[in-house]
């Protein structure tokens, strides 16, 4: 039989849940088995309480899984009703979470130096990637894009885990360079230092990142977002068109080899 998802249902308890930037919250939950099982780039699907008419779980990446403390941390943008209700959860509140979900970052190319490219809330799995690269002893730099200075999160986290060099870009120039991550990407790749780019952010951004990498021949992995109903491969609502056909983002992804994706 094909391999079923490794996801299980885990009860969790909120340890902390606080705003860390404009519209962005950081949730730390206690869920020991999940914390052990998650590998970087995977995701989890949270049953958010508070509105019994809304049954679908909210899929989120994580920035840190701490198997020792048994905790998982995620940063999320409040964009609609599910994430708004999530932001209302208080320390001690409980619910359940399904995970670990899908395929994480692959590093199949055994890179020597990695460039991380995050757009907006795409920073969450990028911070996780940074922690993991640091653990693996792979050097890395980062480009972090934000709308404006108030919506920026992740710089301190990247620094603390040992990023070498970070370029910040902002749409309005209030933080770092004015412009998009992709503006910073071309010059960064010009030096030829990188043999892998990991990226997460708006799909248009990731598409452009993928194109730029392809043009200069650098491997690229993208973390794709889709409307997910189940999160474990049963419903086919989350597919990403790839060169080998439609592939479910919740099992074959969310991380894909950028060359495989048909944008």
């Amino acid at each position: 039989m094909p391999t079923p998802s490794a996801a299980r249902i885990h009860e969790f308890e909120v340890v902390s849940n606080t705003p860390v930037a404009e519209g962005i919250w950081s949730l730390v939950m206690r869920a020991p088995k999940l914390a052990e099982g998650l590998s970087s780039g995977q995701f989890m699907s949270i049953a958010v309480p508070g509105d019994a008419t809304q049954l679908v779980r909210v899929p989120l990446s994580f920035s840190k899984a701490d198997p020792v403390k048994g905790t998982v941390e995620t940063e999320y943008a409040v964009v609609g009703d599910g994430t708004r209700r999530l932001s209302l959860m208080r320390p001690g509140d409980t619910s359940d979470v399904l995970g670990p979900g899908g395929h994480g970052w692959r590093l199949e190319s055994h890179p020597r130096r990695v460039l991380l490219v995050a757009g907006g809330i795409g920073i969450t799995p990028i911070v996780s990637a940074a922690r993991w690269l640091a653990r693996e002893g792979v050097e890395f730099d980062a480009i972090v894009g934000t709308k404006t200075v108030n919506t920026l999160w992740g710089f301190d986290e990247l620094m603390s885990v040992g990023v070498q060099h970070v370029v910040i870009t902002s749409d309005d120039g209030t933080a770092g360079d004015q412009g998009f991550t992709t503006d910073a990407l071309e010059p960064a790749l010009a030096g030829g230092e990188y043999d892998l780019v990991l990226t997460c952010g708006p799909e248009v951004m990731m598409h452009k990142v993928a194109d730029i990498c392809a043009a200069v021949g650098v491997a690229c992995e993208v973390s794709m977002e889709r409307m997910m109903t189940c999160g474990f491969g049963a419903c086919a609502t989350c597919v990403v068109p790839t060169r080998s056909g439609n592939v479910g983002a919740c099992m074959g992804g969310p991380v894909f080899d950028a060359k495989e994706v048909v944008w």
Partner: protein
Amino acid sequence: MSAPNMAVDLGGIKMHNPINTAAGTYGFGWQFEGFYDVSQLGAITTKGCAAEAWPGNPKPRMCEVTSGVMNSVGLMNPGVRGLVEQSGEYLQGLSDKGCAVICQVAGHSVDEYVAAVELFEELAPFAAGLEINISCPNIAAGGCAMGSTPDGAAEVIRALRPRTDRPLLVKMAPARVVEVAKALEAEGADALSVINSIPAMSIDVHTRRSRLSRPTGGLSGPCLHNIAVRMVWEVAHAVDIPVNGVGGVMSGADAAEFILAGATSVSVGMSNLVRPDSAPRILSELVSWVEEQGVDDVNDLIGAFEC
């Protein structure tokens, strides 16, 4: 008191209990093996498959609405050959363990349904029955378009009946159910699955666009449960073949409602997706209910609704 008999016969499909799964919400079964032993269910129904693989529709394929979801997956499937290659061994094993494997059949035309059924006949010895999906709301031809009139529905089954001796279920659209059910019975259908998702529409009022990649999608979930119960009741009164109740089953009580309304078996759908361990929980709640009702055979409760 000894445990009540839960085994039912769905038009020749022997189920060791009445809990089935709804096509498209259960993959090919193995997706749930991480959560529980699937063979404890009476049956599973696999994702609708056509003779050839279908890519399905573009994204977004799902949006959430009040007490339900809408989908426009569009019967993406690996084709009968793909199903057998990827999941055939698993499904054979499941069947060997006593769980009935119902394979759903998709098509855009009568010829395509015929081709798919012939492939299943050839390649899928594990199939306890075939469920003909003439009610998918998300495909341009076939599906709903054929299944919503008595003539269209009858035509499909008339063509398929001579091709197989296996039990033929028909997955019905939520439209003109009494007339369509009678037409299907007359053509030799062995059982009816009532109902498929209901065509619905959700518009993002800021962008003025559909929240799906198509203007409409199929609505599933508890929001439509009581509509489905009514349709099961109507169909069960109109025909003599058994009915498989589908729609918004989230609990044993929801399943019990279908059985009282006349369903022989009950499919769990959307509930599988939001809580992957739903089906066995629903089964155990159903068993408790049968016990509470003080009968020793679930069959005594089929259609036991008192007007």
